[in-house]
């Protein structure tokens, strides 16, 4: 195994979104500058075409390295990981990734619920979950799990979401720590810089 100089991430931020979430990502990611002390995972629903377009698109928006999450990768700070299409992403106790092709959850693979829930078990109160715009309720169960394990919950304000259904379901089901509009989300990302 090659030795890495990048330390394992103590803290993890996961961003989940579906329809209407890409524009938000394109707006907030330019606020990030290296180094970021957290690891960041992006789980978005999309067509299961095996390509790297999303990774390239998001790479162009930030100086933080963006890469597709690979099985057994150690989760390192200052990296943005994209969940590959058609796989669920789980997190092992030793803070490495596992990919999984099991049944779709909420008609989705990757499912936001799966990654939120799995991360909640491992990262506990060092986990922050952000749920963005979308047209189904994937992510809500995962937010509950994160909350139970002491994580921080941020939901995009439904009024500023292109498709408010997903944030609305989240707000109905749990008490979010923050409900942020687009400007506030940008501020949040700007403050992640070390």
């Amino acid at each position: 195994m090659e030795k890495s100089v990048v330390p394992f991430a103590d803290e993890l931020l996961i961003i989940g979104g579906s329809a209407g979430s890409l524009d938000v990502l394109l707006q907030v990611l330019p606020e990030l500058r290296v180094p970021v002390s957290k690891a960041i995972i992006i789980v978005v629903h999309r067509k299961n075409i095996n390509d790297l377009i999303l990774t390239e698109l998001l790479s162009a928006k930030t100086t933080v390295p963006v890469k597709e999450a690979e099985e057994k990768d150690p989760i390192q700070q200052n990296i943005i990981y994209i969940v590959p299409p058609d796989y669920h992403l789980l997190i092992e106790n030793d803070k490495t990734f596992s990919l999984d092709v099991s049944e779709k959850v909420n008609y989705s693979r990757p499912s936001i619920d799966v990654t939120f829930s799995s991360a909640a078990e491992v990262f506990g109160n060092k986990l922050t979950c952000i749920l963005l715009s979308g047209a189904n309720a994937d992510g809500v169960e995962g937010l509950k799990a994160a909350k139970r394990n002491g994580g921080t919950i941020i939901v995009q304000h439904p009024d500023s979401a292109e498709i408010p259904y997903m944030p609305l379901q989240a707000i109905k089901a749990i008490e979010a720590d923050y409900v942020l509009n687009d400007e506030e989300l940008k501020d949040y990302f700007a403050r992640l810089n070390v």
Partner: protein
Amino acid sequence: MFIIKDEDVELLINDLLEIHGYDFTNYSKASLKRRISNLFITDRFPSFAEFRYKVRTDNDYLLRFVEQVTVNVTEMFRDPLFYKTLREEVIPNLAARPIIRIWHAGCSTGEEVYSMAILLKEANLLHKSLLYATDINPSVLEKMRKGIFPLSQMKQYSENYHTSGGTSSLSDYYTAQYEWAIFNKSLGEKIVISTHNLVSDSSFNEFQLIVCRNVLIYFDKDLQNKVFRLFDQSLETLGYLALGSKETIKFSSITAHYRQLGNKEKIWRKV
């Protein structure tokens, strides 16, 4: 979501090994834990102790347990461009063999085995091919033995088939009856079905092509290496090893004498 704790998973893993001989020690724990939790909830056990007792003592339930905690999601011509590469670059190189032996390891309900049979049929090679289809779960193999798949999937499979370079119609290969697609007997005739556990069973033949897709992602590095050695022992020189789209032999002990095909598909040739 995860009602089952890490300690519970360890207890079950020990029971499975000691009582039943199924070794899940080197499986990905995150996936196991999630699937065991889901099964515990689905089957409405009042307590973990009762769940564990059932797994320990009820052999019928054991089969259900193993089937449910392992992942059996598959589809025909999954990743169509992978099949296009098989069709264009791999199968033509096998054509000169008197008998073509292919091993589908961890084939689940066999959709990919039938896909391979169709590729061979279209290359006019099926009559001299043998497709060995193995899985840890006897129940999924029973489903494959029938060669009957849900009709509702055929639209997607048909798209996959055409993207993989298929020029006929997928429906030429099956008869629709109620909600089922019954595949032609001629495709199934060359498929040899057997249980095989990649963790504990050894090599049983020599092959020109081994297909094992989305199985190794559930194994840790040590077990992956063990399985790669098993594949290496079971593969002829100049034979091919085909993996899932996120799997690689790159960091394994066998990587030195394998060369990846010249595109990004996960197919390696033993040299």
